[in-house]
């Protein structure tokens, strides 16, 4: 169970006593309580108002950037689809494969296949395992993974355009594409042969599938 901060909407890990992001004292929620809605989170959250960013953070309606990870939020049309957290939409049928890419570690020890399904946009979280939260691309245990954040970056597999994008999620040690450091929240289109560095030591190359 995650503890959603009633103040900023951040999804905290179980152990958090204060919101990790805004330091709101989460134990205050029960007693000190300006409004009763605190238990369910910010007003509007349970009514399906607002938007979820590609990483599943709740944001108030009209927000242009995710308050938590800084990812730019799409305009209203695409927001409608994102109203449900991405976890729930994963159940959908996958459809027809359009294109396959491979992300291969520099020493070729680790490989992830990335399948783009026609007309579907899929987000894949890259990071390290923390407790029961396992990212889609789990780098835990690889050499150099100590400098990878738990929520390090997102791959966006765009089955409309047949493109792959990478977004840094404000990772501590950064994401680099061909040596260029991404700004937190910055979305970069990848092409075959691009070198992607997560943290400082984990090097990958994008290859054709």
């Amino acid at each position, binding site marked *: 169970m995650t503890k959603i901060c009633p*103040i*900023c909407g*951040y999804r905290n*890990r*179980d*152990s*958090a*006593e*204060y919101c*990790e*992001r*805004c*330091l*709101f*004292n989460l134990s205050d929620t029960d007693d*000190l309580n*300006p*409004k009763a809605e605190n238990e369910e989170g*910010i*007003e*509007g959250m349970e009514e399906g108002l607002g938007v979820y960013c590609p990483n599943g953070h709740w*944001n*108030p*309606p*009209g*927000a*242009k*950037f995710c*308050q*938590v990870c800084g990812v730019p939020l799409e305009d209203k049309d695409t927001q409608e689809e994102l109203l449900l957290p991405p976890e729930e939409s994963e159940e959908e049928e996958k459809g027809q494969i359009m294109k396959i890419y491979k992300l291969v570690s520099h020493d070729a020890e680790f490989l992830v296949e990335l399948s783009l399904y026609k007309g579907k946009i899929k987000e894949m979280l890259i990071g390290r395992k923390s*407790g029961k939260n396992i990212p889609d691309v789990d780098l835990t245990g690889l050499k150099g993974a*100590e*400098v990878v*954040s*738990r*929520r390090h970056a997102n791959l966006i597999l765009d089955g409309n355009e047949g493109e792959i994008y990478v977004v840094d999620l*404000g*990772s*501590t*040690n950064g994401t680099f594409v061909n040596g260029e450091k991404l700004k937190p929240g910055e979305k970069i289109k990848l092409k075959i042969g691009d070198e992607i560095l997560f*943290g*400082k030591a984990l090097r990958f190359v994008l290859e054709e599938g």
Partner: protein
Amino acid sequence: MFDVKYGLNKLPDKNKKEVQRFFLMSLTGKKAEKSPRLNVSFVLDKSGSMDGTPIESLKSGLKRSLDVFTENDRISIVLFDSMVETLLENTRLYGPDKKKVKRLINNIDAMGGTCIDEGLEIGLKEIQKVKLQDYVNWIILLTDGKNDHGSDEHALEVAKNARELGISIFTIGFGKHWSPTLLEKISDITKGEMYHVQDPKELKEIFTEKATKIRKTVAKNVEITIDLYEGVNFSEITPAYITKPQIVPLEPVLDVDQFIIEVGDIYEGKTKDILFQLFMKGNQKYLFDFKISYYDTEGQRQEMPWEKGVVPSLYEDPDKVSATIDRLSVYLQSEIVNDLLEGGAPEQALTLLQTMQLTATKLNDDELKTIIEQNVTKVQDGIELSDEDLIKTKMFTKTVIKDD
């Protein structure tokens, strides 16, 4: 050079798998053995909006501050409006020179627009004309406006260059139309400090005050190296902040397997607090090893011995750590409020402001409480916050100890 005190807000809890804890480290400057030599570059706004009392006060304040400088120090003066002019190149001031410089200052006229970044860049060039290692190096930047004729991005680049050279920037915003976001970023990047001058009269004192403060530097470019034990991690989203005298975000940088955190300078008799947000095992035995290094006032790199195997023990006054967390929460929430108001979500902003109001009450900080209350009222009434509101909110949420 300084005393070090540290500890947690709360002990870990063996019955839990993982716990979140806050570690406060206080660095207090001891009595200085020898005062440092100063190398100060004044980068000053002489745009048209400074005309009248402000520019006259600035001139008399600047002249007055010359008395703080001895013939071992260096100063330079750069003026900017939409253009930049070097009024005084980096120089040593002998007694008779001071008269000449005062005459130069008398001739300053206010006119033109505002181009902060170009001014900063020239200031940075001037300050580097001496061997930086031999001095305590500061740029003192004053502006009363937004960077209308310049690029904020360029200003931040210059600030980053300054930081790499170990030069800090005091930013002083005068009046009620400057950008607290830009000045804050510039001072934060360089681990400097940020001030707000409301009354032109204060311009007469501010430079003397700042130069006197810098003179009390006992350690510059202090760095904490941290080697975490298995089981301990920094929060990735809010890992570390300077929490006294002002709140400044810190970025622990991983170098091989140690974190390095730059925390700026330490002054005689003044305390700098640094708060770390950590996650650790409930039965964590050791937190980390750490080492503090810095440059002394003679420019020599000094390393204090490693402090090995720091155990999870309480800070001598755990309530102070809780108050620090609360203080920081108000600052962080205030940032989110700005984003929400900008993103067009005043209702969510209001919820946050009301929480901040409660925290300020708990902290017993009347000024902070008053400004938050004002913001609550305005947001409730659908009134947009003015530049002045934003400046005041920034200053009151950021500044924990005034005159420190």
